[in-house]
C-alpha cells in the first residue's frame, strides 16, 4: 500500500518535471505574439484549473493529468520557522499536529489571505505558469458575486490572464461524459459531485442545469474525516489534532457497505471470523511516514514501537453518513434519496433518461463499494421498468480537470472566453453574466444551426434575444420557456426602464436576418443595458430578454410543482412503505454477553494523546 503510494508520487513528480520542460519550450515559442498563436492550431490549448476546496488540480491542457496541489497553507509543530504552501508539505519532516489554513468555508472562498498565496504558488513558474494561455477555472455552483469579483480581479489584473472562462466543475464533466459515451449534447445527464465540502446532485437537461432539480447535501469529505477523528478520539486515542493523518486513515480503511445490517453482524464477530476489523499502524514520522493496514498473517517488526489503531465498524459507518446523514443527527436526506427527489423534480419526459445517465465524480466516490451501494439504493427507489445506469470514471477526482480537453474542442469555445480587453471595457458584472450564461448560448446556437462565430462583446449581448426564460445563473428553466404567459410585476422604479429596454430589444429582435454586429438596435440595447445594470441591479439579462421576446420570466412555481405533487406523493409513500419493512427486520441487539472490545481499553475523550 505504502509502496504503491510512493511509486505514484514518484511518477507524478517525473510527470511534473516533463511538463514543466514542455511548457517552458512552448512559452518561449509563443512569446512575442501574445496570446494569438493558440488560435492557429485546430485545438485550443489552455491552462485548466479545477480549484477545489481541498485540492487544486492545475495543468496545461496538453498534459494527460494535472498537478494536484493541496489548497491550503499548513503549519507544522516541528518547524516553527516556516509555512508550507500547497505541495511544499512534502518537504515537511513531521506532519503530526499539522495546523490547516483553508481558504474555503463550506466550499466557497472566504479567506483570500490564504487563497491568494496558494494561487500564487500554483501559478508560479515551476508549478503551472499561465503565460499567455487562456485560463479555464472552475467555481462552485452559486458562487457568490463578491467571490467572483475577486476572482476576476486576481486573474485579469494581477495574473494578467489573456482570457478566461469560469464554469462549474459539472458543466465540464458533462461534456467529457457525452464525448466519451458518444452522446448528443442534449442528452439528459444527472451528475453527482461529492467532494470535500458538499455533495451536489445536478440534472442537466438539453445541456443546461435544471435549477429546480438541483440538490445540495451538506456532507463532504471534510465532515467524514472530522467525524472519524471524533469517534477515534472517543474510543481510542486523542487524534483531534491529527486531521492530516486521520484523513489518510479514512482513505486507506473506509468503505461503503452494501448492506449495513449484514455488515454490522459481521463486525460483531470475534477473532478470525471477523474480517472487517483491521489494525492500522499510525505513522511516527520517524520510520513510518504514511500509516498502513497491518497484514494479520505476518509479523510486523517495523511497527513494534508504533501506535496502532483498531478499526472495526468505523470503517463502514463513517461513509454511511453520505447515505444517512441522520446517523449523526443531521436533518437531511441522504445521497440516494436526494437523487430520487432530484429526478422527480424534473419534467416528466426527462426523468427516465436521467436515471439512465448518472455520472458520479468527486473524492467520496473512491470509497470502495460506493457505486454498488448507490446503485442498489437507486434501483429499489426508482420505478422497476426504468434502466438505472451509474458511471464512475477511473479517477473521479481528476475527471473534471480531464474534461477540460473536451471543453476546449467545443466548436464555439472561443466565443465563451472573456478576454482581458473585454473585462477592462465591460467590468466584472457583465462578464460574470456571460460566464453564468455560457451553457445557454451553446444550446441556443446549436438549436438554430448557427455556425460558431467570434462575436464582439456587443454581439454577445445581442444573444440576449435568444435567452428566453433564463435566470441570472444561466440555467434553462424548461417549465417557463413555453408560450404560457404570466403577468410581470416589475417594481415601480424599474418598470419604466424595463419597458424602454424591451422596446429596443424587440426592435433588434425583429430583424433576425440582419448581421448583428454593428446593428444600431443592438448597440443601443447594449448601451441601455449597461446603463441599467449600473442603475439598477434588479434587472437581469434574463428578464430583459424575456420581455423583449414577449415570453414570461417569472416562473409560476405553483403550476410547476402541482404536476410534481402526485409523483412526490407516490415516492414518499413508497419510501415510507420500505421503511416499515426495514425497521421490522432491523434486529434489536440483545445485550452482549461477551464484549468484542474486551481487550480494547477505552480512553475517554481527551485523556490519552497520540504521538
Amino acid at each position, binding site marked *: 500500500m505504502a509502496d504503491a503510494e510512493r511509486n505514484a508520487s514518484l511518477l507524478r513528480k517525473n510527470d511534473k518535471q516533463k511538463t514543466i520542460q514542455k511548457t517552458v519550450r512552448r512559452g518561449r515559442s509563443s512569446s512575442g505574439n501574445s496570446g494569438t498563436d493558440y488560435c492557429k492550431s485546430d485545438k485550443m490549448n489552455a491552462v485548466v484549473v479545477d480549484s477545489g476546496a481541498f485540492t487544486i488540480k492545475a495543468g496545461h491542457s496538453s498534459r494527460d493529468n494535472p498537478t494536484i496541489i493541496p489548497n491550503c497553507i499548513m503549519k507544522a509543530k516541528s518547524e516553527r520557522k516556516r509555512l508550507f504552501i500547497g505541495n511544499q508539505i512534502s518537504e515537511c519532516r513531521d506532519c503530526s499536529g499539522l495546523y490547516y489554513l483553508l481558504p474555503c468555508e463550506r466550499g466557497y472562498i472566504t479567506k483570500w489571505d490564504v487563497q491568494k*498565496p496558494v494561487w500564487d504558488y500554483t501559478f508560479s513558474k515551476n508549478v503551472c505558469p499561465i503565460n499567455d494561455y487562456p485560463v479555464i477555472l472552475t467555481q462552485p455552483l452559486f458562487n*457568490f458575486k463578491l467571490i467572483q469579483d*475577486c476572482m476576476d480581479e486576481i486573474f485579469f*489584473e494581477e495574473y494578467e490572464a489573456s482570457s478566461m472562462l469560469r464554469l462549474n466543475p459539472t458543466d465540464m464533466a458533462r461534456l467529457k461524459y457525452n464525448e466519451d459515451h458518444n452522446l448528443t449534447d442534449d442528452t439528459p445527464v444527472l451528475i453527482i459531485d461529492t467532494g470535500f465540502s458538499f455533495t451536489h446532485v445536478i440534472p442537466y437537461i438539453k445541456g443546461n442545469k435544471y435549477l429546480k432539480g438541483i440538490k445540495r447535501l451538506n456532507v463532504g469529505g471534510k465532515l467524514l474525516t472530522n467525524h472519524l477523528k471524533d469517534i477515534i478520539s472517543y474510543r481510542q486515542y486523542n487524534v483531534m489534532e491529527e486531521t492530516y493523518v486521520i484523513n489518510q486513515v479514512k482513505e486507506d480503511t473506509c468503505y461503503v457497505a452494501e448492506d449495513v445490517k449484514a455488515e454490522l453482524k459481521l463486525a*460483531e464477530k470475534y477473532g478470525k471470523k471477523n474480517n472487517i476489523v483491521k489494525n492500522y499502524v499510525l505513522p511516527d514520522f520517524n520510520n513510518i511516514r504514511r500509516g498502513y493496514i497491518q497484514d494479520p498473517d505476518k509479523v510486523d517488526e517495523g511497527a513494534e514501537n508504533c501506535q496502532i489503531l483498531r478499526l472495526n465498524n468505523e470503517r463502514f459507518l463513517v461513509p454511511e453518513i453520505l447515505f444517512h446523514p441522520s446517523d449523526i*443527527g443531521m436533518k437531511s436526506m441522504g445521497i440516494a*434519496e436526494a437523487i430520487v427527489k432530484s429526478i422527480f423534480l424534473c419534467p416528466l419526459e426527462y426523468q427516465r433518461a436521467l436515471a439512465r445517465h448518472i455520472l458520479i465524480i468527486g473524492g467520496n466516490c473512491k470509497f470502495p463499494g460506493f457505486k454498488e451501494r448507490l446503485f442498489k439504493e437507486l434501483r429499489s427507489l426508482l420505478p422497476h421498468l426504468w434502466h438505472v445506469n451509474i458511471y464512475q470514471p477511473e479517477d473521479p477526482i481528476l475527471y473534471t480537470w480531464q474534461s477540460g480537453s473536451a471543453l476546449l474542442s467545443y466548436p464555439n469555445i472561443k466565443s465563451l472566453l472573456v478576454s482581458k480587453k473585454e473585462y477592462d471595457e465591460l467590468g466584472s458584472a457583465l462578464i460574470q453574466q456571460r460566464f453564468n450564461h455560457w451553457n445557454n448560448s451553446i444550446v441556443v446556437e446549436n438549436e438554430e444551426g448557427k455556425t460558431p462565430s467570434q462575436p464582439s462583446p456587443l454581439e454577445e449581448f445581442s444573444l440576449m434575444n435568444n435567452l428566453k426564460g433564463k435566470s*441570472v445563473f444561466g440555467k434553462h428553466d424548461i417549465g417557463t420557456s413555453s408560450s404560457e404567459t404570466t403577468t410581470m410585476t416589475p417594481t415601480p422604479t424599474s418598470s419604466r426602464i424595463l419597458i424602454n429596454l424591451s422596446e429596443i430589444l424587440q426592435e433588434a429582435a425583429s430583424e433576425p436576418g440582419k448581421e448583428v454586429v454593428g446593428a444600431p438596435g443592438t448597440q443601443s440595447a447594449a448601451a441601455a443595458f449597461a446603463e441599467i445594470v449600473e442603475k439598477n*441591479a434588479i434587472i437581469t439579462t434574463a428578464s430583459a430578454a424575456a420581455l423583449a421576446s414577449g415570453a414570461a420570466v417569472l416562473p409560476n412555481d405553483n403550476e410547476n410543482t402541482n404536476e410534481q405533487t402526485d409523483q412526490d406523493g407516490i415516492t414518499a409513500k413508497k419510501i415510507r412503505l420500505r421503511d416499515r419493512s426495514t425497521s421490522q427486520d432491523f434486529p434489536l441487539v440483545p445485550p452482549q454477553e461477551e464484549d468484542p472490545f474486551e481487550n480494547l481499553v477505552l480512553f475517554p475523550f481527551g485523556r490519552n494523546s497520540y504521538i
Partner: protein
Amino acid sequence: MTISKSTLRGSNRIKENDKRRVVDETSRKRRQRKVMELLESDNYHDDPHADLVMSKKVPKFEDNLEQRTTRTKKKERTADYYQNKFRKNFQQLVEEDRNEAEENNRVSYMDIKCEESTLPPRHFCAVCGFLGQYNCLSCGTRFCSIRCMDTHMETRCLKWAA
C-alpha cells in the same frame, strides 16, 4: 423516551438517574449544533505559531512572478488587500444571495439544500458504534448495553449536561 429493562435492573442507577438533571430540548439542540460546528471546523487545536510574529507573513512568490514572460509588474497586490476588499463572512454572502435571488425570482443557494429525510432515523450506540436501542435519560444519547451506558455516563454525558 424508552426506559429499558436493563436500566431498571440496578437500583443504584435509578437513584443516580433521579439526581441527574434532564437536559431539555433546547440544550440538546444546542449540543447538536456544537457537534455540527465541530464537524465543519478546520482545526481542533490552536495555531501552533500564534505566538510567533512571522506567522502572519506569508511568503510571496515574487521571484517567480517577476520572471513570467510577458508580464508587467504594475499590479502586485498583497493577500491582505484582497482579504480587506472582499471581507464578508459566509452568512453575509448567503444573505446577499438570497436577497438577490428573491428580487430576480431565481433559485438561491439556500433553496437547493436537501430537505429532511422521510426515512426513519437509525440508532447507533454513541460509545461502540453498533446498533443502540436505548437512550440516556439525561441527554438522549443512544447506547447499546450497560457497559456502554456506564462509559457514556462517565464521559460525554456529564460533560454536556453541565
